[in-house]
């Protein structure tokens, strides 16, 4: 057990997470363990938000970190910041589970949301603040477009489901959503 310079406490959390992902590509188990400890609360929040139910969120967490372990070498290719990459995997994994559940049967059960514990200062600053803009820009959209984008991203809704929920024809929903995305793009480029 030699001293490992990447374990230095003085590094910024994001750099540390990036270094840990790099070590995970080399099958370093202790790096995965540390990466898990540093990021689990952020990713569990995503799983819970999408799946709305603790047991399903826990199962999704398991899948998420298995993917991280197996696909860490793809991280560099995306050009993402480390937390973007991890959150995207967590979101996509949770959405996959949600859709599998919906296609099996009852859609109704997942809307329950759960309380969250307070963030630690370190964890709440993991995602770069400059990219926060989408959240502000979303607030400027008409509510039906905002709801469509949020419904797709965080609730895994298809165009058909979104149209159903809003009681509009599918083509209208597609137009709403694309206009919403266009407006977001414009807002974010300002």
């Amino acid at each position: 057990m030699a001293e490992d310079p990447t374990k230095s406490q003085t590094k910024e959390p994001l750099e540390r997470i990036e270094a840990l992902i790099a070590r995970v590509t080399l099958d370093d188990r202790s790096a995965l363990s540390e990466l898990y400890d540093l990021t689990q609360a952020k990713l569990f929040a995503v799983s819970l938000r999408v799946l709305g139910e603790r047991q399903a969120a826990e199962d999704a967490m398991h899948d998420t970190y298995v993917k991280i372990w197996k696909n860490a070498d793809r991280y560099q290719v995306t050009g993402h910041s480390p937390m973007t990459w991890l959150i995207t995997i967590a979101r996509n994994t949770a959405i996959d589970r949600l859709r599998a559940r919906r296609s099996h049967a009852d859609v109704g059960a997942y809307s329950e949301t759960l309380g969250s514990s307070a963030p630690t200062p370190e964890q709440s600053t993991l995602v770069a603040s400059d990219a926060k803009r989408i959240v502000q820009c979303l607030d400027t959209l008409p509510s039906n477009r905002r709801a469509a984008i949020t419904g797709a991203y965080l609730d895994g809704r298809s165009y058909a489901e979104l149209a159903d929920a809003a009681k509009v024809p599918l083509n209208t929903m597609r137009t709403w959503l694309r206009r919403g995305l266009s407006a977001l793009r414009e807002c974010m480029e300002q």
Partner: protein
Amino acid sequence: MSKVHEDDMLAAELALGLLEGDALTEAQRRTVTDPEFTKRMHGWEAHLANMADLPPVNAPASVKRALMTDLFPDAVKPPLWQRIGIWQALTGGALAAALLFALMVFPMQQPQSTGPLYTAEIASEIGDFRVVAVVDKTREEVILTRTIGAAPEGRILQVWAHGPNEPAQSVGLWPEGETVRLALPAEIAAVRGTLTLGVSEEPIGGSPTGSPTGRVFGTVDIPNVQNAI
């Protein structure tokens, strides 16, 4: 609508998971063949990920345990003793062998035990450290034997214990050797119910703070601890 704009919308729909059927297949194909399109999709992913930047919620510890067990089955610690009695646990080979080894190294001077004997295993999640512990309530001692791992160069092991909702306190230092025998401090000997044992690595001379400062290799909860009769 311009080609660039149309691509941007498609990339966003792909990132959102809204494409289906042929449109999905075609867009996925482009993420392999069209770097410009892939860059747009990753750009949307990055923006959208901020919608999922939520206040942290700690996952239960069982999630990590199950994950590590699944990924690294060779590093698994069998928590058998948690569910079954010590005599049944003794039939489990490795644990029994290590326990017997510990007892051979330190043979009991009082063969007529009047207090219970508890056995437990402390193992790191990644399988690089493993200790068998025997708590002897007759003698109010804990005997620990390393089966895997050691303190890093220039460091020593330190044994910790605590009762329910109490802070860990030092049981003693384990500077060298595969086995150590430590007398339980009075507060630890007095614990009823769940007794937690742990091992950390510390500077030579032990933790300067009275709490673990180095890596905690692992802890174990021994339920239903009772006193000598």
